[in-house]
């Protein structure tokens, strides 16, 4: 069985995603890192589905559907932000801060 390597890869992918979200500034890169985390989770689902039943595989489809929708909305937002600010760097996005 390839369960342990699959889970290990998925953990590595997830941590990479998190690190990307934490440390990168570019919104598009952060966005791609989020996709990376989603797909890491997908890999875990598929790997575990082998022993725990088909539910995990079905769930992957849901995640993919949601990720597609999220990609559409997220890219649209980034586009809107770029038009507004001429930049996709998150450092310039601090409207929530007081004053």
């Amino acid at each position, binding site marked *: 069985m390839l369960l342990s390597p699959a889970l290990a890869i998925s953990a590595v992918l997830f941590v990479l995603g998190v690190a990307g*979200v*934490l440390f990168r500034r570019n919104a598009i890169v952060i966005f791609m890192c989020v996709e990376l985390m989603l797909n890491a989770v997908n890999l875990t689902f598929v790997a575990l589905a082998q022993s725990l039943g088909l539910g995990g595989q079905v769930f992957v489809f849901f995640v993919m559907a949601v990720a597609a929708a999220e990609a559409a909305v997220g890219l649209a937002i980034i586009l809107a932000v770029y038009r507004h600010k001429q930049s996709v760097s998150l*450092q310039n996005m*601090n409207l*929530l*801060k007081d004053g």
Partner: protein
Amino acid sequence: MTGTSIDFVWLAPALALVGFVLNGALALIRPTAKTLVSIIGAGVLLVAFAVSVVVFTGYLGIHAEEPLVFRYWSWIPVGTLQVDVAVQVDQLSLVMLLVVTGVGSLIHLFSIGYMKEDPGYARYFAYLNLFVFFMLALVLGASFPVMFVGWEGVGLCSYLLIGFWFTEEANANAGRKAFIMNRIGDFGFMVAMFMIFWSTGSLDFDAVFAHAPTAVAAGGTTITAITLFLFLGCTGKSAQIPLYTWLPDAMAGPTPVSALIHAATMVTAGVYLVARCNLLFAMAPVASAVVAGVGALTALFAATIALKQWDIKRVLAYSTISQLGYMFLAVGTGAYAAGMFHLATHAFFKALLFLGSGSVIFAMHRAYHHTHAHDDAQDMRNMGGLSRYMPWTTALMWIATLAIAGVPPLSGFFSKDEILTAAHARGYAEPAWLAFWGLGLLTALLTAFYMTRLMLYTFHGPNRTGEEAQKHLREAPWSMTGPLVVLGLLTVAGGLINVPELYHGNAWLHHWLEPLTQASAPLLPDVHLTPSTEWLLVGIAVATAVIGIVGAWRLLQPERLVPASQAPAERGFARVLRNKWYIDEIYDALIVRPIVWLSREVLWKQVDQRVIDGAAVNGAARGARALGWANRWLQTGQVGMYVAVFVVGVLLLLWRAMS
């Protein structure tokens, strides 16, 4: 249910309530429909009186020894506390029922003439009907809570009617004063109720009186506290020392109201309460002595003030307080029947006196109205010689005066004499009562004196109303004099209900109330006076009355009075009496001002403004703001940092879950 006419006793209060609802609706919709209001207002009372008479005859017919209790519905079912809306028909409540509806009917009839010109006519009758409803609830209620509803209700109506002409601030203030003084007394009533339930496990009269002798020790602290708290309630409602000061001010209301509420019925509720709880009071000799002592002192104290009042209604108000003192002397002595007897006769002659004074004020008012004068229509210094214009009123008020002074064979003589005899008799067992008897006798002297003074200054001597106004003075219409005549007859004959055995009478009321007082009789000292002693006491009482009347007639000189506007101020002791012993001023300085000061300077400016507003309300807001100010550096607006915090949090949670 008994299957007799007694079953319809609920009709009496229900009729009054219907009268209130209809008149109240008319007051809101068509206040000008005075004829309809009169028919409803006085009609329901007359029918209620007829119902009372029928119930009374029905009760006579069944020869019941036990009180009849009619339970209608459950009111407060809480665990072991079960209070029903229930009505109790027995000897005592029937006496009160007849007095309230009978005298009430006459006063309603009188009001039709007296209040005819008043714009608030419908409102007046609505309140008056509501009062009768609550008064009947008070006297018919079969448990302390039901009685308390009536007790509070009559207080409410009293407040509404004292402040009936509320556009004048003094009248509204008088209403408030009455309400607050009564509240103090009601506190006592409520504490007494709690203690009764706590010690006997019930609030129904029959259960309480059945359990009381076994549940609490006679003469113990509990029963003494219960009865003293009950008596505190009585001092508020029945205007006794120390809570009497509201009653003279209550004269701000219309005169028929003074007659009905502040003389004949409501203020006697305290006497009724003590008579109803006679077993409890007999079990607490100390409390009984307090009741008798306060009664005797109040009687004398109020009588001294009445000596120097010029307002005709105020004289009668102090006289009422004084006579209520007599009733408390009686019930404190254990002469419960005598107290109820005086309550009934007092209702007759004092209602007559008040309505008579109402006629006088009505005439004075009309005379001043015609001449556009603004003199005081209630000040006796503006009256004088009215017997020439108002012969009927004069004659009837003289009858009432002789009755209240205790001249035989009028009703007041029998009832007052019985109280004094009872006090004297108890004096052989407990000497304190000899002092109470002395106070009572002195009061009788003063009563005769101030009542003769009132008659002398009002109806005799030269007239001081003024040349022009004099021509307009005349007797009130028959709709007003008629009820006076009926009350006059009752004043003359009222004593017949309880002619003592000394005069070979049958002491009917005494025997009638015996089923209710027999339980307390063994607890009281048994002293019997010899007939010769009794005759001596009667002689002393009559002599006192005669000395008072003749003394006033000889000493006072109405010719030397001048109208109020020119009268000089009193000097010396007369001034102290004129100013009511400065009791209002003393209360003001000792109680009202400190409370106002405490409320303003401490409770308002410190507790409310600083502690509640400052520390609690604004302090909480200020604290939240400071917390936010301290933590604002956390909000950088950098999403990356928020995510980092989020990740750290998740890792911490994971670590907690793993380990």
